[in-house]
């Protein structure tokens, strides 16, 4: 505790989540943006703040204050990812960077001050370099300890230096609520202590006795004796690979061919650090600025040809829609695992690996979405209940099956579920189409129906209608009448009447 606080420079990028989102979504720098999480505003851009939008506001209230607000979901992973180039740039200038959180990092300044000729020069150099990387007006505070330097950076527009030993004086007039301990802050306020200086005047022993080690640490922070040393991160190995195409390529096989060696290098680099990759992120850029980004999972681990396949499948999806060719492909590992966990046994890893190889072959013939694994999800209609997920992907958005789901079909279930459902005609004896009124009464008993549009079949039995009225409060509301009917060949049908007419939804065969 009685260590000398280190001289520290803290680099702060104001509104970092906004900067990251602006860069990612390619929005204009002065756009009014709000990032929301749990229906509350988490961060907002300066132009939105000028209209009264602020953190903690409900989304609806924020939109009322600024009608042209762009509302985006807050993605913490995006923050970290976008901050990575800035940290890398800092590490090139100064060794040993500690990331406090995305948008805020600390470096030891003593060496840098000697090298650049003074703390002011070093600070300007750091903020200038960060701005080159797109930090959007980074500020630097240099002081004794991270806490003081952080608050110095927040009280300047470029660089602020608190001289050695002057930390207590700088902190003294600041409000007590800067301490990140709401319970203690409330208590201190009730005791009449409103600034950090007043808190620092209390005797350290008394604070320790009353508030314990955590309180004593906050007391040390308030009195400018932030003795916690910097813990710089170990720079991670750069395993991403990027391929640039000049001129742009517009055929998928060309891109796949040029990717082959790069994919092998990518996998070799992972293998060299004893890792295997179980998920990759593929980014594609086109000449006219379109961008496609997707994470691909692998049930085992990626090989070079798997990587090329994923790039190809992603290209298949976008090449039809994009107006220009591909200029850049970037592949980065999204999830890695130790290679030891993925080593196959002496006689192979069992039958599942064989299955995966076979299915991957079919996928490389037909495309990623051609091989599907079925699963049952919650829902009322047959389509809602059966979910098909591409081999290798994760099931997402499945509703719980064990809920009651009133209105779903009872057993036996139809073995053939048409997708898309077939339009049919259901007629009464006089050839009129059957309708159902609001009370669920059928206009006439159905006697004939056409399954294919030309051939009429006689109905020997029918039952219904059973009403289905789902989500009437929302835009995807659905209401329909369901019937079961048996035709003269002994085949049973599930027929549906909705606003679009009669449909054969499924066949019991």
């Amino acid at each position, binding site marked *: 505790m009685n260590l000398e606080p280190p001289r520290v420079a803290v680099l702060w990028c104001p509104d970092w989540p906004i900067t990251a989102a602006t860069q990612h979504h390619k929005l204009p720098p002065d756009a009014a943006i709000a990032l929301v999480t749990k229906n509350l505003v988490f961060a907002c851009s300066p132009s939105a703040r000028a209209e009264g939008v602020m953190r903690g506001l409900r989304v609806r209230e924020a939109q009322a204050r600024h009608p042209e607000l762009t509302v985006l979901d807050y993605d913490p992973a995006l923050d970290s990812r976008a901050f990575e180039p800035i940290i890398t740039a800092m590490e090139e200038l100064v060794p040993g960077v500690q990331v406090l959180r995305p948008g805020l990092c600390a470096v030891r300044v003593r060496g840098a001050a000697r090298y650049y000729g003074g703390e002011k020069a070093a600070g300007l150099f750091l903020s200038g370099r960060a701005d080159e990387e797109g930090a959007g007006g980074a500020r630097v505070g240099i002081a004794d300890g991270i806490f003081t330097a952080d608050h110095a950076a927040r009280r300047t527009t470029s660089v602020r230096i608190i001289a050695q030993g002057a930390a207590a004086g700088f902190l003294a007039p600041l409000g007590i609520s800067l301490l990140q301990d709401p319970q203690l802050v409330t208590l201190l306020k009730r005791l009449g202590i409103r600034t950090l200086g007043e808190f620092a005047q209390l005797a350290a022993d008394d604070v320790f006795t009353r508030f314990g080690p955590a309180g004593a640490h906050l007391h040390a922070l308030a009195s400018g004796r932030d003795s916690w040393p910097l813990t710089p991160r170990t720079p991670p190995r750069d395993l991403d690979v990027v391929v640039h195409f000049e001129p742009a390529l517009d055929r998928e096989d060309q891109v796949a061919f040029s990717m082959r060696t790069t994919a092998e290098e990518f996998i070799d680099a992972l293998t060299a650090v004893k890792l295997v990759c179980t998920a990759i992120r593929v980014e594609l850029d086109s000449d006219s600025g379109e961008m496609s980004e997707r994470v691909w999972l692998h049930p085992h681990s990626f090989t070079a040809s798997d990587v090329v396949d994923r790039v190809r499948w992603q290209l298949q999806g976008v090449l039809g829609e994009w107006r220009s060719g591909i200029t850049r492909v970037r592949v980065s590992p999204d999830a890695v695992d130790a290679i030891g966990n993925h080593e196959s046994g002496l006689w192979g890893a069992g*039958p599942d690996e*064989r*299955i995966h*190889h*076979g*299915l991957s*072959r*079919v996928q490389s*013939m*037909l495309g990623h979405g*051609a*091989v*599907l*694994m*079925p*699963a*049952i999800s919650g829902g009322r209609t*047959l389509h809602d*209940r*059966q979910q*098909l997920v591409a*081999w290798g992907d994760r099931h997402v958005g499945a509703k719980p099956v064990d809920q009651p789901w*009133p*209105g779903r*079909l*009872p*057993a*036996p*279930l*139809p*073995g*053939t*579920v*048409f*997708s898309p459902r077939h339009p049919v005609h259901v007629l009464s004896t006089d050839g009129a189409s059957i309708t159902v009124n609001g009370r669920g009464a*059928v206009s006439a*008993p159905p006697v004939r129906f056409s399954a294919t549009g030309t051939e009429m079949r006689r109905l020997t*039995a*029918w*039952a*219904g209608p*059973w*009403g*289905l009225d789902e989500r009437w409060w929302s835009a995807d509301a659905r209401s329909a009448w*369901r019937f*079961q009917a*048996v035709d003269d*060949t*002994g*085949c*049973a049908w599930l027929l549906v009447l909705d606003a679009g007419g009669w449909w054969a939804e*499924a*066949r*019991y*065969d």
Partner: protein
Amino acid sequence: MSAAIDTLEHMFEYEQVSPATSLTATALMEPAYDTAGDLDPIKDLKARIRSMQASKLDSRLIPTHPAIAGLLPGGGLQQGAAYSLDRSAMLLMTLLAPPSAAGTWCGIVGLPEFGVEAAQHVGVDLDRLVLVPRPGDQWLAVTAAIADVMGVVVIRPPKRATDSSIARLAARLRQRGTTLLVLGSWPQTEAMFSLSHSEWHGIGDGHGHLTAREVTITVTSRTASRPRSTRLWLPDASDTVRRADVRHGDAQHEPARRLA
């Protein structure tokens, strides 16, 4: 030393041969069931011999639903053989369920309207079921690739394949021991399933709802002298498949359940 090995070898030979010979002998001596009676005994014996020849020494059976197994030559679906089915998803699922429950992977090619939930009800394990709904023109190549790794493959051929490609696929199936179920016609199938006299229970003229179905299933096999058929609940009121000739309490009189 070598004499000892010789003895050992012969011992194993005898071990292997003796059950096979005894099986043939007993099978031939048994009175032929199902076909006995009005048929010429020589014709009947010929059919028996043909069926014995068809079941090669290495032909093994995959688990088959007990209600259907008795209709098939050899008493079940064979590995490496092809079977063709009428257009009936329920029958298909009934055939798929026992091998799937026993741990076999099943692949379904070219059947976009396969009812997944019904399959789960019948007993197909969805964790070991793979669908390739739209294989397009490459359906034979896809079927061959899937047949390499899965125990049971279902296809619906979009058009007639050439004889040579079918022979190639058949060789592959035999080599891998994969059973092929074809919805539609297919040359050189081990047996053909067809459904007739389908009768639904529980539904009336504007009341009730579908509860059970009785159907006649007929198996025409390459080796049997004449088709065998049986009446089947597909499914019965408790959603299980069983033979209808064993009379349980009348299922069709169960009170109709409401849909909603």
